[in-house]
């Protein structure tokens, strides 16, 4: 898993490449923790994310709790990851834009 972060005008964009699973979720959590306190909006760009496990989903939902509703978007979500949001019910909770 690779993570790139970019901050512009208070908007933090976190691009994740590869898989977020039990092994990589702690690094994902650390990356979010490192930057989340200093932004007004948060965008997760999942164009190159192939899979997200329950441990990764928790970090994503935690980030939404931290930011408050409407201040976080998940963009470029592929079919596999979108299906995970749908089967778990979190497609009703997260602001998602498909690829």
């Amino acid at each position: 898993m690779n993570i790139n972060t970019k901050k512009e005008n208070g908007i933090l964009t976190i691009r994740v490449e590869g898989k977020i699973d039990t092994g990589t979720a702690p690094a994902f959590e650390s990356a979010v923790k490192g930057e989340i306190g200093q932004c007004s909006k948060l965008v997760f760009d999942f164009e190159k994310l192939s899979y997200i496990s329950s441990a990764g989903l928790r970090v994503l939902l935690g980030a939404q709790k931290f930011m408050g509703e409407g201040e976080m978007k998940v963009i470029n979500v592929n079919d596999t990851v979108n299906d995970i949001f749908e089967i778990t019910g979190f497609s009703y909770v997260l602001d998602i834009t498909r690829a």
Partner: protein
Amino acid sequence: MSDNYDYAMERRLRELSPELHKLFTESVFGLQHILSNYLLIFPTFTDHTELHSLNVIDFCNRIIGDQLEKLNADEIYSLLMGCYFHDTGMGIREKDYEEFSKQIDFGDYFEKHSDASVPDIIRDFHNEFSGLFLRKYSALFEVPSEKHLDAIIQISRGHRKTDLTDEKEYPIAMTVDSGNTICFPYLAGLIRLADEIDVAAGRNLSFLYDTETLTNEKDIIEFGKHEAIKEVVVLEDRFVLMIDTDDEFVINNIRKMARKMQKTVDECNLAVTGRTPYTITQKTIEIRRARDIK
């Protein structure tokens, strides 16, 4: 155990019954708001929100393993709902507390805890409050029948204290309208176990919980244990707590917790294995140093 168990119940439910799966997913939105209410009463407690529910579901998926094929749609729906509802009692409003506390059999609790505060009572009986909460507000979640409601309530209540071998309270096969049966002791045992083993560092996301500001000794010990347990691994025959600490105080507390966990594993095995068509294959709790396997 393999990643193949990720979201296994959710996928299987959608396959077996898109209608029940839809009811489940639509409930998640409301539940995630309700579950956060525990912070109003217990601001320094470890996570009891939907993030904990996700862990409980994930552990259930791994404990069930290949036995998932034997579970029907009504059982999976009831279990998934129970995973979300089991801690709703931790965040009940004052008005509901007044109403529900009149319906709970507290036994000799107040003789033993004469100075119990309302938060103490809520914490110690939160499984009962969860059941009563669901009974009162079930229409909000469009629970499909009274029998499903009974199942979810009993499964949620069963995550603590209740006797899962009581066949009247926990029937091995209750038939619902679809003709399917629901095995109460297995489903309640799964939540009890999954809830008990959600003790790793990942439970409390580091950017949501500031452990540096804790002052209560009990909270410090609780978070200290969680921070030292890097992962809980579900193997075919046991649960492994992967720890990374040299602090003897923390290690002793983890050992103490592991003994309590072992009792839960034994209780759940007694209620499920041999009495129902299902098996809890995990029999023991092991503590292992994370660095030993790096």
